[in-house]
């Protein structure tokens, strides 16, 4: 007999009253991050968090690169950074290198930091443009300069100083990260149930999920259900029929081959995204291997050709058979329906060009905790959750489309991506930058101006005009100021250890 603290007697789920039991369907990073967060949050009436995971169903594992926000999640959840780095074979990530996107064979870098403080009240880009230095934007970014020479040290020092002006994220084995979380979440009280969900019981009257049945006959009832079942979306899609908002007309890449391979000597402190015939290839360095993936649009390239692309780019022997993933860009119109909340791929998918999969999980968890339905399901909470998640997806969608829009490659896929209609908000952002050098931010919770600048300048755009007040500052003084900044960056980077050395020391393997 199943002995979770949660009910397993098939009793009807509540419509009002305290949430006593939470059932999470699906493991992987989404499931275990959610389990740990809810166990840590510990709403007063909560008696159980049960995570149901099928040992037969693999996790997707495309989220091996992260954004710096994951560090806030880990810290909030009480995770030990050294243990994560050690257990998940993690390396540190200062940003993403984009190769071949402009079509000129060059590369640019999206670093996790800014390009210096405002100069006389204006964003530094205006002076950089004025001085004709737009092509050297990366020289003003500490993480970019450090990444170029393969060095890494975490930010340090007083807030507002250069040494504290950047951030970092991780590359890790998402399966191992999930395993680490599983251990901590179970210690924090999450009950782990292994089994395959073969039926979801929905109350015909209330529309709420009452329980899930496993293929061995056990049923697990709960008050709140979290769908972390990945693309299958067993609860939110399968049982509750939440409609899918399809964005594949804007982001037509729909498949990815993935394969790990042996690494070489140095470990780069950045993800690499290399443009290919009908998509792009990722390279994510871990401590003992390199994660590789080939994202492509099946309408423009067949599976065999895409696989050849991937295999031709490997730096070492493959460690496994390549796996093919299929996906569709978009999201559920309802992330929260009745007593079910979709977190992770069940809620939606955006290609991993900017490593946003795990970030969107963090956002989903954060919004849920802020709006936790402790004593009942008020539609206002669900609609607000939907509003915020939809906004999060839309702003990231536009940021990803930006990369494609500005490409200058000649293949049919890339020409289409350059010419097809784009969302109005993004069209405005691009036009504003091209005409004036200003960067509009629609979602202050998402990518900030320095990230937009990295892509806009990196893809070769130079604004026609800069802010008129930039001319109020003496040109020589500004040039000297910017030069000083570059020298300070170079000095700080020179004092950093190599990334591999830092990782080895940090992970406790000895230098």
């Amino acid at each position, binding site marked *: 007999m199943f002995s979770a603290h949660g009910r397993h007697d098939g009793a009807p789920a509540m419509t009002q009253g*305290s*949430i006593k039991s939470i059932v999470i369907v699906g493991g992987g990073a989404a499931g275990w991050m959610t389990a740990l967060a809810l166990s840590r949050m510990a*709403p*007063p*009436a909560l008696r159980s968090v049960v995570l149901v995971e099928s040992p037969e169903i693999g996790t997707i594992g495309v989220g091996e690169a992260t954004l710096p926000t994951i560090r806030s999640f880990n810290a909030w959840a009480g995770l030990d950074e050294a243990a994560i780095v050690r257990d998940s074979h993690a390396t540190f990530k200062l940003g993403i290198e984009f190769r071949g996107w402009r079509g000129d064979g060059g590369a640019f870098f999206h670093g996790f930091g800014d390009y210096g403080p405002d100069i006389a*009240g204006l964003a530094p880009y205006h002076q950089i443009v004025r001085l004709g230095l737009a092509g050297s934007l990366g020289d003003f970014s500490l993480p970019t300069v450090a990444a170029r020479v393969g060095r890494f040290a975490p930010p340090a020092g007083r807030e507002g100083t250069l040494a504290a002006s950047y951030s970092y994220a991780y590359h890790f084995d998402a399966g191992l990260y999930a395993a680490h979380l599983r251990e901590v979440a179970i210690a924090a009280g999450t009950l782990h149930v292994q089994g395959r969900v073969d039926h979801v019981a929905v109350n015909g009257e209330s529309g709420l999920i009452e329980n899930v049945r496993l293929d061995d006959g056990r049923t697990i009832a709960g008050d709140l259900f979290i769908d972390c079942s990945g693309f299958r979306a067993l609860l939110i899609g399968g049982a509750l029929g939440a409609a899918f908002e399809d964005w594949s007309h804007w982001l037509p890449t729909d498949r990815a081959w993935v394969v790990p391979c042996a690494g070489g000597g140095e470990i780069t402190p950045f993800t690499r995204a290399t443009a290919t015939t009908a998509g792009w290839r990722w390279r994510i360095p871990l401590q003992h291997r390199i994660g590789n993936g080939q994202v492509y649009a099946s309408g423009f390239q067949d599976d065999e050709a895409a696989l050849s692309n991937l295999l031709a780019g490997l730096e070492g022997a493959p460690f496994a058979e390549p796996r093919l993933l299929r996906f569709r860009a978009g999201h559920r119109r309802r992330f929260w329906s009745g007593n079910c909340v979709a977190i992770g791929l069940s809620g939606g998918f955006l290609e991993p060009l900017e490593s946003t999969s795990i970030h969107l999980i963090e956002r989903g968890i954060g919004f849920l905790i*802020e*709006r*936790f*339905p*402790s*004593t*009942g399901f*008020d539609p*206002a*909470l669900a*609609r*607000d959750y939907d509003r915020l998640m939809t906004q999060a997806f839309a702003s990231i969608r536009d940021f990803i489309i930006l990369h494609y829009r500005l490409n200058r490659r000649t293949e049919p896929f890339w020409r289409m991506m350059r010419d097809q209609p784009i969302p109005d908000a993004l069209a*405005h952002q691009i*036009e*504003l930058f091209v*005409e*004036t050098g*200003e960067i*509009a931010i629609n979602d*202050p919770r998402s990518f900030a101006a320095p990230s937009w600048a990295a892509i806009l300048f990196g893809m070769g755009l130079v604004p*026609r*005009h*800069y*802010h*008129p*007040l930039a001319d*109020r500052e003496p040109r020589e003084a500004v040039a000297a100021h910017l030069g000083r900044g570059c020298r300070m960056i170079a000095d700080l980077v020179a004092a950093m250890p190599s990334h591999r050395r830092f990782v080895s020391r940090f992970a406790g393997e000895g230098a």
Partner: protein
Amino acid sequence: MTLSIAVIGSGVEAWLYVSLLARLLRGYGSVILVPVGPADAVGMIALPPSIEVAHRLLGIAPSDIAAIGQPRHGIRIARSIGGEARIPYGAYGNPQGKPFAGQWLRLRAAGKAAPLAAYSVNAALLAGAALRRDADVEVVRTISTGWQVDTVRYRTILATSARRLGIAQGAPFAAVEREGERATGLRLADGDRIAADLVVDASEGTAALLDPSIGWRNTCVAVGSADQRFDGPEPFAIAAILSAAARLVNLLPRPGSIPVLSAEYRRLLDVERTAMTAADAALRRLVDRSCALPDAALARFDALYGAAGLLPDDPQPWLPDQWLSCLDMAGLSPTHLDGEASPAAERELADWVARVARSVIVRANELEFRGE
């Protein structure tokens, strides 16, 4: 490219706007003020706490403002059903402690909370209490103050500041000169003509010079009350003037770029308008619930607060604490609060009440603020 801006208006809003423009433009281009209609009526004008930033920028000393008015510690609203609603500025509770609203709402549900006003030194000051000389430093840090000043004398201070910053004043306004939908300049009462790259209506709506609610279109800009009127008791139009000046300077015209810059200006303005309109509607609802107009953003804020005590977290003219006052006084109460405040939070809040009480001198006729 040089830039000439002609600002139409005679009142506080116009002088405040041109002063800020001149300060932020640092000598770039030219700004001229063209008076229109009568200046502000005599009387008092309310200034929000954010005015402090403008005064600092313009070099206006607090003592100059204190000499023409008195501090305004919050919003006082005469209710049609009788009595007065008070929305104190500043923070409730100790900003260094746990978020106030969640703890207080849980304590109140358990019957263990003091009245909301007891947690705010601004509320005490708003009720007429005085700050003690030896007031608790942490308590004093939570104070936020606007002003209630003599309109004519305040306008004079602003005009002096504007002239010091090089603002010229033209002859009275006669008409806007246009080419199609573009304003190209102004005709003055003395027959002179002024060419302008931008014509700004800061006339507080007295002259209806440009279409209302245009924000910025072509070469026409409307700011403050000329752009949107607020009928509630909070001076949102003054707050809107402050942000309008900063927004225009951030988005200064560049050759051929007015269409996209003005679109960005309107996008940002829309965000501000939505927030201010909701806050204005919330205040008017406190005056008379039957007169309250429906407002989509306010309805969302009501629903989230009513569900779980959540306060607006999108850009706002207020701190969340002003929303807490406003929603609480409207009779809303969260229906889904889980659990109780921790004993530590209970002690922390009780301690804060005592620290606030020790920091002020309450006069006999103001004891009602403390619920005594």
